[in-house]
């Protein structure tokens, strides 16, 4: 549990750093950072309970996307202000390094395994973002239609 806490906190700080790089101003950067922390918390808890990488990463990505969509409506800014930084800690940078590390060590089987794992993680994140963004589109489409109908009467 201690490891999870450290990782969540460091994910928040790392994301805040990226927010500075991407010129996310003011409170948006702070709230965006919390999104990353929440995402990693979801991943860690699911992973600890024995779920696979695929499910854990998908759930984490979905959580961050939901958080971003809700917050963007609340603060009236584009979703990307929260989604861009929030996704950073999930990206499998370690997978890239270890793949090459094993290749250099002439351990091809582990390198291939690591490479495949990296691709699976990328796919999981994609599915997480895809599913939530799609539902978000559908939801707001329905709401907008309702508003339009209300105006009509």
């Amino acid at each position, binding site marked *: 549990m201690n*490891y999870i806490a*450290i*990782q969540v*906190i*460091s*994910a*928040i*700080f*790392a*994301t*805040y*750093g*990226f*927010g*500075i*790089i*991407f*010129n*996310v*101003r003011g409170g*948006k950067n702070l709230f965006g950072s919390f999104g990353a922390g929440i995402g990693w918390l979801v991943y860690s808890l699911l992973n600890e309970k024995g779920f696979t990488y695929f499910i854990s990463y998908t759930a984490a990505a979905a959580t961050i996307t939901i958080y971003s969509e809700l917050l963007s409506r609340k603060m*009236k*800014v*584009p979703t*990307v*202000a929260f*989604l*861009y930084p929030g*996704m*950073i*800690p*999930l*990206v*499998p*940078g*370690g997978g*890239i*390094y*270890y*793949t*090459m*590390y094993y*290749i*250099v*060590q002439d351990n091809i089987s582990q390198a291939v395994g690591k490479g495949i794992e990296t691709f699976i993680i*990328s796919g999981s*994140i*994609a599915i997480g*973002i*895809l599913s939530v*963004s*799609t539902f978000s*589109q559908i939801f707001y489409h329905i709401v907008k239609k309702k508003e339009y109908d209300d105006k009509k009467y």
Partner: protein
Amino acid sequence: MDKLNDNLTAVNENDILYLASYVGKLILESGGETYRAEDMVDKICSYYGLQSNSFAVLSSILTTIRGKERRFFTNIEKIRMRTINVEKITRLSKLVRDIDKYTFKEFLSQIQEIDEQKTNRFMYTLIGNCLAAGAFAFYFNGSYRDCIASIIGALSISMLGYYSAKLQINNFFLNLVGGMVCSLSAYICFKWGIIFNISVSVISTLMLLVPGIAFTNSIRDLIAGDLVSGIARGVEAFMIGTALAIGSGITLSIIKTLGGFL
């Protein structure tokens, strides 16, 4: 972009097209999604009563509007340099949403102000890089020593970014060198005795270059139905990832060949 005619007295199709394309270009330059750029252009044109169609990809945005008396006007803007600037996207989105509060000339001057907004980008990037890399060290279960090594790596990456911006180096080669710098920096810290295992600091620094944004944007473009842009960004992300892998791999390989200990 060139300033519009200062003697502007009547708004015509050309001016509106120019203005709208200007906004679309700024969105793409700031790392916004292609559908956002297209959407903004169309909103601006429709507000001024013109029917428009725009098509945006990573590197350009093409806009055609149908004016009075069956005349058509077309403009294409080339995007030559792309960064991530969320604040610009935010301000442009807000400005376009409130378009009815401005006259044409006021609207144009607001956009130019956003375009010319300058911050000390290098200093901000430096601070952001160090903070992110340092935090990532703990994120990957490293110690404070790994944190220090990662910050040193972040400084190296910042300098690399600074000089490459001046030299206009292509993206693939830049990331290749970036991967090398990450590994080399970590190895030097290892030799200095700051760290006892280079993996954590290499990964922490590598995270600064990993194409998380291109990847996320790729997915969002695909969701919006922009298959061309979505796939293009996906390929971009893959290319960057490959370059980083090759770069760090080359350095590790050289170190091993020279008898260094990994």
